[in-house]
């Protein structure tokens, strides 16, 4: 049976509690709907907070005694005794964490209660908050699972709560957006699944091999196997299949168009989780599976990574400039920033890869803040149209302050978390690619341009200090500032953005350590074979 090790508890608790809270009220008489709503919300939030405390406890060396710097490649901490789930085809319950997944686990555990807090008063709260809890279980599952079958199940499981979040709580065009989101990413995942299956069928037998097939899904064993897939061409093929799945999730140009639609229609909490954690699943999977298991293909396809990353970064930024919807612009900016992750990995320098990892984390702090701000605009001003209002900093000073901090963080202002990642990636990029760095560097100007313009045309520039220009969508209502729970959520995100900008080493050191080991143990041999000079 599945054990009681920390990561299993962390993953399964929210799933069980979430499903329980979803189903139980359906069985109860519906007359006390409101109290059910409150109880359900409080339980969900309490469980989420507890899990966050637990994740923090695990992350702190002082408390848990775990030295996250001291894990060698292919080794994991907090693992369980592998438990066979489906013996016939070799599926086991194996969990574990290392410096790649730990920041993501902590980030997920952080963002879940925050997104609940930001949408504290969501309609149909007895469904909303449990759904987010299920989301937490699915996301954590992706980050801790070391069995590809389980990984894939969790990977797909994340789609379901998000699908419902968009479909039920979304904007006017929610049906189209949720369908597009589901079908688009599902299709890409199926492509990835083909890759996973090819890998599965080329594994040797072993302790965990299935009784029927003689193969297994164990990621650690796959990594230990001498050559996973004999044929070189097939290896590259599998690598590309995996890339399609992961790049769609990240998302990278040209398979990014599901993201803006999903974001614009999604409720605030959905957007926060989508941008904060779900996009990182792509980068995480890419590093955990594609890069770690197929180093030679990774080295051969470096130019492809550069092209994908550069296109996402530069093109994404330009598209942002042309947007008129605040959330759509922020969504495209995510595309642009995710491009930097591919560039960081392509540098084949510990600094660049660590920068990419830190980008995953920093973007996970900053983009939820951006979407919380955009959501607050939708909530309090009923529109997301840039330029439909002016000078509202007077009416909503807190909203304006959070917007300023988030926007500045995202455009890479020093002392905020995003800058650390940017500067690390770009320094490494210069070491490897030289003057090509001018392209991403110039894109920083474009980034500053669209962020500043969008900010100017909403909270500033009205020429009427005490009234500003209010959007028509308010229909003459008095404008309001953010509520206390929105404010708290955004404040925590902002404070963490500053904290990790000034003291990035809290996570950066373990990331750079992991990157060094990844290169030394896995990639250097491939680099040498291919004659690629670092």
């Amino acid at each position: 049976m599945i054990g009681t090790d920390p990561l299993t508890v962390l993953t399964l608790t929210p799933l069980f509690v979430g499903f329980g809270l979803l189903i139980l009220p359906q069985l109860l008489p519906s007359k006390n709907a409101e109290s059910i709503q409150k109880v359900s919300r409080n339980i969900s939030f309490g469980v989420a907070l507890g899990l966050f405390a637990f994740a923090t406890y695990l992350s702190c060396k002082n408390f848990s005694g775990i030295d996250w710097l001291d894990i060698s490649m292919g080794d994991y901490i907090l693992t369980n005794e592998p438990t066979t789930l489906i013996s016939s085809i070799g599926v086991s319950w194996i969990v574990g964490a290392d410096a790649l997944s730990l920041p993501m686990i902590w980030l997920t555990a952080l963002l879940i209660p925050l997104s609940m807090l930001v949408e504290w008063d969501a309609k149909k709260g007895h469904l909303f908050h449990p759904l987010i809890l299920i989301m937490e279980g699915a996301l954590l599952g992706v980050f801790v699972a070391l069995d590809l079958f389980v990984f894939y199940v969790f990977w797909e499981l994340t789609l379901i709560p998000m699908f419902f979040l968009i479909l039920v709580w979304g904007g006017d065009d929610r049906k189209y957006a949720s369908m597009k989101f589901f079908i688009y990413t599902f299709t890409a995942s199926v492509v990835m699944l083909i890759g996973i299956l090819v890998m599965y069928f080329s594994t040797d037998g072993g302790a965990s091999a299935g009784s029927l097939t003689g193969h297994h899904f164990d990621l650690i064993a796959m990594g230990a196997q001498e050559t996973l897939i004999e044929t070189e061409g097939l290896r590259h093929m599998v690598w590309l299949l995996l890339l399609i799945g992961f790049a769609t999730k990240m998302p990278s140009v040209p398979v990014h168009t599901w993201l803006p639609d999903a974001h614009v229609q999604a409720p605030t909490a959905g957007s926060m989780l989508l941008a904060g954690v779900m996009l990182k699943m792509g980068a995480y999977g890419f590093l955990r599976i594609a890069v770690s298991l197929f180093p030679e293909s990774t080295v051969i396809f470096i130019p492809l990574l550069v092209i994908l990353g550069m296109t996402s970064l530069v093109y994404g930024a330009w598209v942002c400039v042309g947007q008129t919807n605040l959330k759509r612009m922020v969504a495209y900016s995510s595309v642009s920033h995710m491009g930097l992750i591919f560039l960081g990995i392509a540098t084949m320098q510990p600094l660049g890869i660590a920068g990419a990892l830190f980008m995953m984390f920093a973007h996970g702090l900053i983009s939820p803040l951006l979407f919380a701000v955009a959501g607050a605009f939708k909530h309090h001003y009923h529109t997301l149209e840039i330029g439909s209002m002016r000078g509202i900093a007077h009416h909503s000073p807190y909203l304006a302050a959070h917007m300023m901090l988030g926007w500045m963080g995202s455009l890479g202002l020093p002392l905020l978390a995003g800058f650390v990642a940017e500067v690390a990636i770009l320094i490494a990029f210069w070491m490897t690619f030289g003057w090509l760095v001018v392209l991403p560097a110039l894109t920083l100007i474009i980034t500053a341009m669209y962020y500043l313009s969008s900010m100017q045309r909403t909270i500033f520039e009205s020429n009427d200090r005490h009234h500003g220009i209010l959007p028509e969508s308010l229909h003459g209502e008095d404008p309001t500032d953010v509520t206390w729970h929105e404010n708290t959520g955004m404040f925590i995100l902002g404070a963490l953005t500053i904290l990790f900008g000034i003291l990035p080493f809290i996570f950066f050191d373990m990331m750079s350590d992991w990157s060094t080991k990844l290169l030394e143990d896995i990639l250097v041999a491939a680099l040498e074979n291919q004659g690629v000079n670092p």
Partner: protein
Amino acid sequence: MSETKNEYKLLLPLVPILAIIPYLALVQGWESIDAAIFIVAAPFVAFPTILILGQVYNKNKTWKNTWKEGGILGLGALGVSLSAAIWILFDYLNGTAHFADHSVSHWLEWISFDVLQSDYTMTETRILGMGVWIDSLTLMLMFVATFLCFLICWFAIGYMTTDPINEDSNHRFFAEFVLFSLGMFGMVLADNFLWLFVFWEIMGLCSYLLIGFYYWKDSAAKAAKKAFLTTRVGDVFLMVGLFILYDIYGSLEFSVVFDDPSTGVGGALVDSGQMFWALTMLFIGAVGKSAQFPLHVWLPDAMEGPTPVSALIHAATMVNAGLYLVARMMPFVDVHHHGIAGLEDFGIMVAYIGGITAFMAASIAFVQNDIKKVLAYSTMSQLAYIFTGLGSALYFLNTGDYHAGYFVLGASLFHLFNHAMAKGMLFMASGSVIHEVHHAHNLLSLSHGDGDHHDFDPQDMRNMGGLASKMPVTATAMMFGSMSIIGIPLIGGFWSKEGIIAETWAAYFHGESAMLVPAILILATAGMTGFYMSRMWFMTFAGKPKNEVVDYVYENTPWIKEPLLILTLITAIGGFALALYGVIDFLSNESTHLAMHGDHGVVDSIITQLEHAFLPEDSQIRMVGWVTIFLALFVGPIMAARIHGGSLKDGETATPIVGWLVNLSGKFGTQDVSSLAESDLAEALQNRLYFDDLYEGIIARTVIPFADLCAWFDRNVIDGIIKQIESNSVLGSVQIRRITTGSARDYILMATVGALSIVALLLGVSN
């Protein structure tokens, strides 16, 4: 005056805060250098404190009257910074601390990582961190920044809290003000290029926030955006420069880089071509920050911010950052101390940018009628002088003439000091004028009972004139400030400007023909400076009043006069005194402390110093010196006096200290320039030589259409293909449509059934 007296009681709560540094020094026995962290920490703590308290206690009477909406707290924090800075300065000047080890304290290990080398092995772990680096340049700028920030904050308490337009938002001003100061202090102290850049950007943010302080005003918000984006262009190149440097040296710490600039990481010789590009990239960043051609367009617009902000940006902090960065480059080119040979062209380029900007800004300043705009262009022009001087220094150091190189380096940095003091004062004085004229106008329109506030521009010098008798302190301050900027002999800026001009010519005389252009440009600019600064003073303070408002102007706002008086003193005699004590040698690191030349007493050194200034040995340099003095002292001011000078209205008398100048200005006759003012050239200058239009046109014609094209492409082509695929699979969507009923209950039921069936399936398979 009684109002003024009461106000100083407000400083009493600051006594315990200001006692921190003396307590550490005298009771705890700290080393001065350990207190350096307080310079940064004090504003770091003050920033959120003021912001949050201000938001919570907004409109509270005590907060407003006793704490001046956070101004007192800000002053306290800056006071702590200032006292720590002075302590450090004294320890170094009297020899208690030594320059032997520049890198004196380490604060933070920001990130650490390994680097994969080309032989596929890892280097040892490298660290990017933050520490403190102290040399004479740091000491000077640290003092300038902390001292001026403190005085300007003092001034701002009077200026901001008495202006009704700032109602209830001054806490935002003071919070951003201390954050800005934090940026400058941090940048000056940083011991590596990366953290220099980090704080550099913090200043960029704060300039954005402060220029756009009146965020609801279109013009202010747009000016803020322009400032941020223009400097961002420079900053991006600066970043690339950092990458190149990092690649060469494997570190960005001054102690590593400057130890031996000619050898990079692993003992490889540094290629001068690569170094040229690194320095050029850094220089573009400096050009953006210090508002030099062609990235100068943001600075005049930045005058949209409140006047203390102008003083802060243009005197104490941000614009000096670019100069500081260029001054930091000296070890790279200093061939006597392991510098890299073959970088003369870089020095010449810097000098050209300086020369062009100096001339251009001075000529635009000719036609400005807004008192702050004149000062803005004057800032640009004076900074360009310093750039020219630094360019000459780079050139000399790289060609091996290190004596001339160090001299002009020291002179340039001394000019930075003089300019910072004078310009800080000039901006505060202009603020005083604007404040009182505005106040008077409000009184006047109240008594007339008409509310035409908006037609009157209190910054327009055409509404002033004859203020010398109304505002004696301000007029005096502005007179000495202008004299220092012009370079009137014996006053402030004279001691440094002479050196810059002379040495730039010296570079030409020594055989570098390319230096002729900047040399001529800055020589001509000396006369032009004499004209536009005198014009500003005469238009404001001399002649008959041009508007009835002037009769109602009085200097009576508290907190405003003290900084003016202190800075007047420093500007009037500080330049001479420091020159006497060999500050130029000190700033160029040739001597480690300030001391008088020779040992024959004060009179002797004064004579030596004057001889050096007026009768240098080299006859060509002597010629240049006299031409400069002739242009700056006679040609420019007299032309200005002919056009704008004149005695005051009958019955009005100014204090003797400025009265002589007013009277003198009426003695040169008058000249009518109205036909000249309508010429095409004047119009081009009014339009800032069309640079703003050019840039805006380029952006509107390229960037915006291209962005729209990208957005269109994404929506219609990339997403269009996906939609096409979708619509081809209508069959599927019809099926889906049938089951999407829109009821959450249904979906949850379906999901549960689905999940359960999956579990059942799995269990079935496993058994």
